[in-house]
């Protein structure tokens, strides 16, 4: 029985098809990359799994339990965590407090929540910035805080939304190192959406490629790069961009 199974998932917005019957499965402990050109329906797929959209058809099964159309806070309680590209921060909560909120999903007591939060921060090497406000931090740091926040809810599967976009090489490598560490040390299954192929190729054990709301390929990074359709999809996009 697969860890996360997505079957014939379909979602369209007023006639505009975003996902047309996407199916795939993830095994426990894997690091899976989901790639595809802009408008391929990556984010929609993501949101359908996590519960921001409820799919028009198809099923999402997590650990053998159907979670199709669950609200985000319920999918989270089932054990799925996620991060966001941008962190909104207005009320000036500190990094620590942000992560504490995550921890609160498991505990009620402030002090235990605090302990757990700082533990996670240390694990991600953020211990020294725990009293800063999020908007005082560089983008790379913010992403990590987002990751920490999600981790604090103790997920078994974590879904990362373009975690590397806008980061330079060294930062990206750092993130990659972190993800591997998470995967090995905390046995967390990782499912990441990426636009940039390079990053995904290096970190993922398997890659799924979407284009126009369809799954066009799935397999080892090595095979994917050679895959005709994939190249066409990406080239096509580049081609379009250049003109």
């Amino acid at each position, binding site marked *: 029985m697969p860890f996360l199974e997505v079957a014939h998932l379909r979602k369209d917005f007023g006639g505009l098809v975003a996902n047309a019957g996407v199916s795939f499965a993830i095994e426990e402990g894997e690091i899976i990359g989901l790639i595809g050109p802009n408008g391929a329906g990556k984010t929609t797929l993501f949101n359908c799994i*996590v519960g*921001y959209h409820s799919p028009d058809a198809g099923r999402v099964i997590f650990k053998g339990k159907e979670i199709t159309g669950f*609200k*985000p*806070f319920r999918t*989270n*309680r089932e054990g799925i*965590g*996620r991060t*966001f590209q941008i*962190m*909104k*921060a*207005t*009320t000036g*909560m500190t990094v620590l*407090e*942000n992560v*504490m*909120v*995550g921890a*609160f*999903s498991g505990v*009620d007591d*402030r002090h235990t*929540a605090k302990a757990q939060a700082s533990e996670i921060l240390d694990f991600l090497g953020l211990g020294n910035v725990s009293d800063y406000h999020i908007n005082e931090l560089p983008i790379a740091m913010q992403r990590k805080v*987002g990751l920490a*926040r*999600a981790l*604090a*809810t103790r997920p078994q599967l974590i879904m990362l939304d373009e975690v590397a976009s806008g980061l330079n090489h060294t930062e990206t490598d750092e993130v990659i190192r972190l993800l591997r560490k998470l995967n090995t040390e905390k046995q967390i299954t990782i499912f990441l959406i990426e636009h940039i192929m390079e990053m995904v190729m290096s970190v993922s054990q398997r890659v799924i490629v979407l284009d126009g709301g369809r799954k066009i390929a799935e397999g080892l990074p090595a095979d994917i790069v050679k895959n005709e359709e994939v190249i066409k999809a990406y080239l096509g996009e580049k081609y379009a961009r250049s003109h």
Partner: protein
Amino acid sequence: MKDAFDFSDFSRAERIGLLIFSLFLIIFPWIGASSFLKAVMIQFLLFSLFGMGWNSIGGYGGQVELGQAQYVGIGAYTVALMMVWWKVPFWLSMPLGVLIAVGYSCIIGYPLFRLRGHYFAIATICTSLVLKDIFENWKLVGAAKGVELPIHEHPDFLYMQFKSDTYYFIVALFYVALFYMNRFRRSKLGYQLRMIKDDEEAAESLGIDLRWCKIKAYATAAAFVAVGGGFMAVYNLYVDPASVMDLDLSIKIALMAMLGGTASLWGPVIGAGFLVPLDRFLGSWLGGHKGFIGLDFMIYSLLIMAVSAYQPRGIWGIVQQFFRGRT
């Protein structure tokens, strides 16, 4: 529990301030203040109570709520009616009023929190106006006539009737509220609310049930405000929709909290401490003079505008800015 009395995370200045303020509250009746000043003081404490309640949903939760008056009304009417109908002592009817308010807030909170932002704000106004209209025409509860509480010849603790004002009682209520809020702001709910205010999407992804959280905060607010309402009933010995359920009251409550500074423990207190005396003094000073009609309100509103434009974070924001400027 211990969090309630733990102010350690506040700056030294704030802690000293709180201490001085508390001392002042305790000795206040003995400094020979005029009884009008006493009355103003009671109003101030009452409205800080209201404000702190509003702060839980409006400040920490970031849901602009403009219908608190309906809970003042529920609290006040429960106390008044039970006293008139069945001679139920205040100490029984007041908690009951709180219960009713909380129940009611949950019931209407469920649909209300489908709404966001201004839709929510207007909807809260509507619900409280509807309740007011109902009470204004409901014969059983005295309709627009309202309810008069019997005056007791002799001081009567059971019914909270004393010749001299029940000053220390409202002080006590004030501290209960203050300590509760001090705990609240660092409780699980408190943190979750702040997260919701920051970013609802993210909050949801962290396993927070938005609606349920908001309802809990809303119920908290309702409870606080209902307590105040109960007090108003025994303090004025008269309850009528126009004075306990009016839109003005709702707006005043929100106004004070917002002006003082939302999502901070002191904000509502400062706001009330600023607006209540301003309102009462200006009113009694200019109100009686011909040719000055409206002048008091002009000053009042000028100050409101000035603060909101000068420092969006309210008076508390200004104070902090001031001290930052110093150190």
